[in-house]
Structures are given as structure tokens and as C-alpha cells.
């Protein structure tokens, strides 16, 4: 195999390969590549772009919430030009546009940004390296998976320009609203949303089959299940969640598509009345069926968002405390348990639908049970810090911040797991605060940690520490300024579905003192955007100007992903490594160095 420096021309016919090597052109190297690393980077860049786009949608919405009915500076005029007068006349966001942005913010963030970044990018790039594989088990399927994702994303973006605008029934697309929101256009934003989702679901199906097969089949000699790094375990469980939870949403999506295009009534009940009178459909459908099928996916999806994040944080923490993970085995078992239980908690999203007491007791119980494995993992990570000689570099700072942020997100979820308290909190900003604490300063911080951590492996250069620290501290403060006030607003009863910021909800100009917080949240969001500039600059500048990684294992890590040359060549390893030990042998008493790589023989 070629080495790091002689990237292309040196290799050729000097080794006996079954297939021919030739220098690939631009398209086969960067666009239609079957190399898991290139696909991982494709996923990474595309999903970071979507992450930024989803964030921009939200900033426009926050302006509308803070200053209802006032034109958005600069961007408002742009929106009017791009989307037309009926959407943003005079640069003021219309109610329809607000709904569209809300629905698309959720969809883009969950399905096009965070899952592809956590599972598509890190799962693709790092997992095969950690199991010592030359590539994914099915490289061409892997390419197909990325292209499905890409075109799914394009369909979602194109939906902004369909007549009537993009989907506007929330990222949950509850029927019958989703079917009836825009009946004047046959092909409307919702239709595009469903088509896009079918593409994304197929993409994640291909990805998860591939990753599970890779982990089961391509583990190198000596890499037993209990020697797998926790990151790989997390990706393994995540893949199963994607594999088994997504198909029901695909089924539901097909049924909603039939409701929209063939005028069937899967989710439309008999006698449904809208402003235009009785809806002319056959009826007999069940709106709650959509919610069941949707949440059957979407609750495991929460763990799809959080498990890879926990995996990344575990790697970073073990490496930067120079200590083995505390309770590695219990973390593994906890993540498996998490995977199982996550499938039977979904209806806690549906307490408001008039659920019976027995079934609601069942779901409250399972919801409380699922907090146990999450707490086991989080506690293990906290205890892992104890007595370590911690290196406070940028990836470690993000990983450390993940712990309390995810903790706040998790603990504020408990009142939502109980029927009695959930009924008061469910439609309020409290839920927004809770969920975003889990995903924004939780998962996204972990993903940033991963970017800073694996950057030297991917590019051969470190990202700049000073810019990284400004990025971290700025983001950390702003995230909390954005999401903490939402708990206060929610507890005061501010509805989460009001496009004027909640003033109609309180009515008669009575403000319990929480509407003003919207302005603060907007300014914190703008500041957060400002601090992301440091990341963007750092990300590109470090490609050429970053400090060179002097070895292929610059963090002195133990797992197999650091046993490859840097940058990682096609085929990853020069020869298949053999594993002799567990994944986190740091500071072993009596050892020559404070870490022993997994492939080092005694």
C-alpha cells in the first residue's frame, strides 16, 4: 500500500492485487468515491452545511419572536426576493413562512445535519478504522447511501420553492394537519417532505446494514466484542436503532403520501371539519396511527442522536484523562439496554391525546426505566475524570461541557415523562428547552469535540487551539443563554407554537414577564452565530496553516484508528493489525509509556 507522502503515483503493479490500480479522476475520487473515508468526509461537510442552514432558519424565526411583525434586517429583503411577497412582504416573516421554517428547522437539524454528522460522518470515517478494516463491508452501497442522503437533502431544499412553500406542519408532520395544510396544490411542500424522507430513510437503511456488517464481519483478529472501543459499540447500537426504527416511518410516509396524492383516509377520521366545512374524504382513518408510527421512529431517533455523541465523548475523555474508562463493561451493557428500552417508550410523546390510564402507566414506567442506562453511562464518564491528569485541550473542553449539558437535558426530561406534569408542560417552551439541551449543547458539543479530535488524523494538522477555545467558551455561554430562559418561559406557560412570540396566548397584553426574554434569546443566538465564525475560519485555515501532527498518533491514543498512517491511505492499514488488549490501556503501572496501543504485543 502507498504511504502517506507518496500518495498516488508510486503504487501500481509492484504488488499482487486482484484488481487494477489506477489514478482516479476528480469525480471518482471525490464525488463517486467508494472509500469510506472520502464518504465520511462528504457526509461531514454536507451535514455541517445543513447544520449551519438549519441554524440560519432558526435565527430568522427568533427575530420574528423577539420583534413580531418587524422587518428582518438585510435577510428579510433577501427572503422577499427569493420566496416572494406572499411569504415575506416588506421583509416581515409571514405566519406561513414561520411555520415552514419551524418544520424545516426540525427536519433539517435532525435528519440532515446531526444524524448524518454523528452516524454518517463519524461512523463512516472512524468505525472501520477502529475495527481494523480496510473499508466498509459494502463500499458501493456506502456510496449509494451518501447519494441518497444528498438527493434527499436537495429535495428538502427544493421544497422551499414549490407552490405554497415548504412543509409547514412541524417536523412531526402530524396528520390530519399535514394533509390538509395545503390542499390547493397537488405537489406541495408536504409531498416533497415525504419524498425527501423516503430517500433519507433508504440512505440510513443502507448505512446501518453496512455498518453492522462491518463491525460483525471485519473485526480484525483478536478484537473481541469486549475489546471494541466504546465509540464502536455506540455506533453498533445506533445502527440497530436506525435499522429497525426507521421502516415504520417509511410505512407511515407511504400512507401519508397516499392520503395526499390518492386522497385516501389512512389518517383522516370520519366527520373531520375544517374552516371549509366537512372534509370530502371517505374517513374512517386514525390520526393517532400516524403519531404511533412517527414516534416509534422518533423516540429511538433521540438515542440515535445521543449514542454516537456519548461514543465520541468517551474516546476523548479516556484519551485526555490518560485513564481507562471507568466501568467500560457497564457502559456497553447500558447502551445495549438503552437500545432495547428506547423502542417501548414512544407514547410519552402522546400523553395529550387522551390516553387511558393503564397504557399511560406503562409508558411512564418504561420512560423512568430508560433513564437508568443513560445515567449509568453519564456517571461512568463523570467517574472516569476522577484522579486523571486532564489535558484541557479543545476537544476535551467540548467533551467535558457535554456532561453537564446532557445532564440538564436529561433531568429536565423527567417531568415530561410523567403524565401529570407533562400535560401542563407539553405544549410549552419547556419542551423546547429540554430537547435542545440534549441535542444542541449536548450532541453538537460532542460532535465538535469529535471534529477537533479526529482532525489531525484526517488532515495531518491540528486545528488552532486559541481559535478553538474562543469557539468553545463563546458557544458554551451562548448556548446556555439561549436555552435556559426557555425553561422559565415554559414554566410560566408560554406556548411553543405561537408565531408572534406568545403574546396572543397570554392575551390582553398580559405578559408574565417572560416575553421580554425572547429578545435576549435572539441576541444570544446572534452571538452564537458569531462564535461559529471562529470554527469555520479555523476549519479551513488549519487545512494549510495548522500545526503539523508530528506522528500518526498525535494524541497518544490506544485505539486502532490511530494505528494507521496519516493521512490514512486507501485500504487504511499496511497489513491487517492484530489486537492484543482492551481499548483503553492508559497509564498501565510499569509500562514504558502512559498508553499501550491495542495492537502492541506484550
Amino acid at each position: 500500500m502507498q504511504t502517506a507522502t507518496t500518495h498516488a503515483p508510486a503504487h501500481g503493479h509492484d504488488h499482487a492485487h486482484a484488481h487494477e490500480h489506477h489514478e482516479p479522476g476528480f469525480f471518482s475520487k471525490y464525488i463517486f468515491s467508494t472509500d469510506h473515508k472520502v464518504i465520511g468526509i462528504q457526509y461531514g461537510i454536507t451535514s455541517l452545511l445543513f447544520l449551519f442552514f438549519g441554524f440560519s432558519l432558526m435565527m430568522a424565526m427568533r427575530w420574528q419572536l423577539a420583534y413580531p411583525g418587524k422587518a428582518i434586517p438585510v435577510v428579510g429583503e433577501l427572503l422577499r426576493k427569493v420566496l416572494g411577497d406572499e411569504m415575506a412582504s416588506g421583509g416581515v416573516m409571514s405566519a406561513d413562512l414561520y411555520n415552514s421554517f419551524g418544520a424545516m428547522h426540525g427536519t433539517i437539524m435532525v435528519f440532515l445535519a446531526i444524524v448524518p454528522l454523528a452516524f454518517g460522518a463519524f461512523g463512516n470515517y472512524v468505525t472501520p478504522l477502529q475495527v481494523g478494516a480496510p473499508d466498509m463491508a459494502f463500499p458501493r452501497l456506502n456510496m449509494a447511501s451518501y447519494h441518497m442522503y444528498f438527493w434527499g437533502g436537495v429535495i428538502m431544499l427544493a421544497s422551499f420553492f414549490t407552490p405554497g412553500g415548504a412543509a409547514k406542519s412541524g417536523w412531526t408532520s402530524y396528520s390530519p394537519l399535514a394533509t390538509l395544510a395545503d390542499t390547493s396544490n397537488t405537489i406541495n411542500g408536504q409531498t416533497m417532505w415525504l419524498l425527501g424522507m423516503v430517500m433519507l430513510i433508504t440512505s440510513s437503511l443502507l448505512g446501518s446494514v453496512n455498518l453492522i456488517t462491518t463491525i460483525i464481519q471485519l473485526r480484525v483478529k483478536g478484537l473481541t466484542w469486549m475489546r471494541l472501543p466504546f465509540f464502536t459499540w455506540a455506533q453498533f447500537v445506533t445502527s440497530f436503532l436506525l435499522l429497525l426504527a426507521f421502516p415504520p416511518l417509511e410505512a407511515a410516509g407511504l400512507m401519508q403520501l397516499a392520503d395526499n396524492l390518492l386522497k385516501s383516509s389512512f389518517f383522516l377520521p370520519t366527520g373531520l371539519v375544517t374552516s371549509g366545512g366537512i372534509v370530502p374524504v371517505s374517513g374512517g382513518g386514525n390520526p393517532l396511527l400516524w403519531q404511533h408510527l412517527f414516534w416509534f421512529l422518533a423516540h429511538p431517533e433521540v438515542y440515535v442522536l445521543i449514542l454516537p455523541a456519548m461514543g465520541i465523548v468517551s474516546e476523548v475523555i479516556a484519551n485526555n484523562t490518560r485513564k481507562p474508562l471507568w466501568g467500560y463493561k457497564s457502559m456497553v451493557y447500558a447502551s445495549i439496554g438503552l437500545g432495547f428500552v428506547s423502542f417501548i417508550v414512544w407514547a410519552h410523546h402522546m400523553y395529550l391525546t387522551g390516553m387511558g390510564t393503564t397504557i399511560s402507566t406503562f409508558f411512564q414506567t418504561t420512560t423512568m426505566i430508560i433513564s437508568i442506562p443513560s445515567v449509568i453511562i453519564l456517571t461512568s464518564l463523570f467517574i472516569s475524570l476522577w484522579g486523571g491528569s486532564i489535558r484541557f485541550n479543545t476537544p476535551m473542553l467540548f467533551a467535558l461541557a457535554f456532561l453537564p449539558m446532557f445532564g440538564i437535558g436529561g433531568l429536565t426530561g423527567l417531568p415530561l415523562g410523567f403524565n401529570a406534569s407533562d400535560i401542563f408542560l407539553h405544549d410549552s417552551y419547556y419542551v423546547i428547552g429540554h430537547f435542545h439541551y440534549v441535542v444542541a449543547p449536548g450532541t453538537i458539543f460532542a460532535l465538535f469535540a469529535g471534529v477537533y479530535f479526529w482532525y489531525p488524523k484526517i488532515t495531518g494538522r491540528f486545528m488552532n487551539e486559541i481559535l478553538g477555545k474562543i469557539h468553545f467558551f463563546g458557544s458554551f455561554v451562548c448556548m446556555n443563554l439561549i436555552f435556559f430562559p426557555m425553561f422559565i418561559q415554559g414554566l410560566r406557560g408560554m406556548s411553543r407554537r405561537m408565531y408572534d412570540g406568545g403574546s396572543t396566548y397570554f392575551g390582553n397584553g398580559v405578559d408574565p414577564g417572560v416575553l421580554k426574554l425572547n429578545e435576549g434569546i435572539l441576541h444570544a443566538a446572534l452571538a452564537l452565530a458569531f462564535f461559529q465564525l471562529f470554527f469555520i475560519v479555523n476549519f479551513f485555515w488549519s487545512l494549510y496553516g495548522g500545526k503539523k501532527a508530528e506522528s500518526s498518533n498525535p494524541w497518544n491514543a490506544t485505539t486502532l484508528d490511530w494505528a494507521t498512517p496519516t493521512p490514512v491511505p486507501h485500504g487504511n492499514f499496511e497489513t491487517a493489525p492484530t489486537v492484543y488488549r482492551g481499548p483503553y490501556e492508559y497509564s498501565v503501572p510499569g509500562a514504558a509509556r502512559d498508553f499501550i496501543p491495542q495492537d502492541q504485543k506484550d
Partner: protein
Amino acid sequence: MSDATHTHTSETVAVSGHHRTPGEERKVYFTVAVTQIVCAVLTVLARYWQLDSTALTIAFALLLPCISASLVACYLMHMLERKAVYMSMALTIPFFIAMIALPLWSDGNRPKGYHHATHYVP
């Protein structure tokens, strides 16, 4: 899914582990197919027996297909031969059951005075 502490000397494991000749295999497949067709015909006939109980009618209409399906899984798909295969299928079963049972349970368990979700009464 056993641990990977394997040695590469055991490469001689047969691809599908069955010890019948292809001719004998074909006989098995033929027998399975005939049994399946008999099952299908019996299912149809059983439907015309005019049972009085809904539960019995449903049970009868699903029992024979279940037998038929198990034959396919065991003899045609060789599902039970490999641990990784039957473990991943076994893993799917609880989720499948949850998928079927919990919405149904939830649908049946409603507070008094609630109309059924399929019939909206203003």
C-alpha cells in the same frame, strides 16, 4: 456472535452447513412447498367452517400461515444455522411485537367518554 478469538485454520467450515446431497435438498424443498400449498388450501377451507368466535376465526386464519412461514424460514432460508442470523432475527421479534401490540393496547385503553379516534364528533 461469538468472540473473534478465532484461528484462521477453521476455514473449512461448509458454506451452508447442511449435510445433504443436492438431490436430497431438492426433495426437502419439494416437500416444504407441497406442505405450504396444503396449508394455504386448508386456511381457505377453515375460513368457511363458520366458527362462532372472532378470536377462533382469526387464530385459525393465522395458525396455518405461521406454520407455513416457519417451514420457509427453517428449511428454505436455513435461518437457524447461523447464530448471527437467528440472533438478529430474534432481536427483531420484540420490536415487531411492540410495534403491533402497543398501538392496539393504546387504542383500546381510553378514558370514559372519549370518542374513538377514527370518528371525530364535534
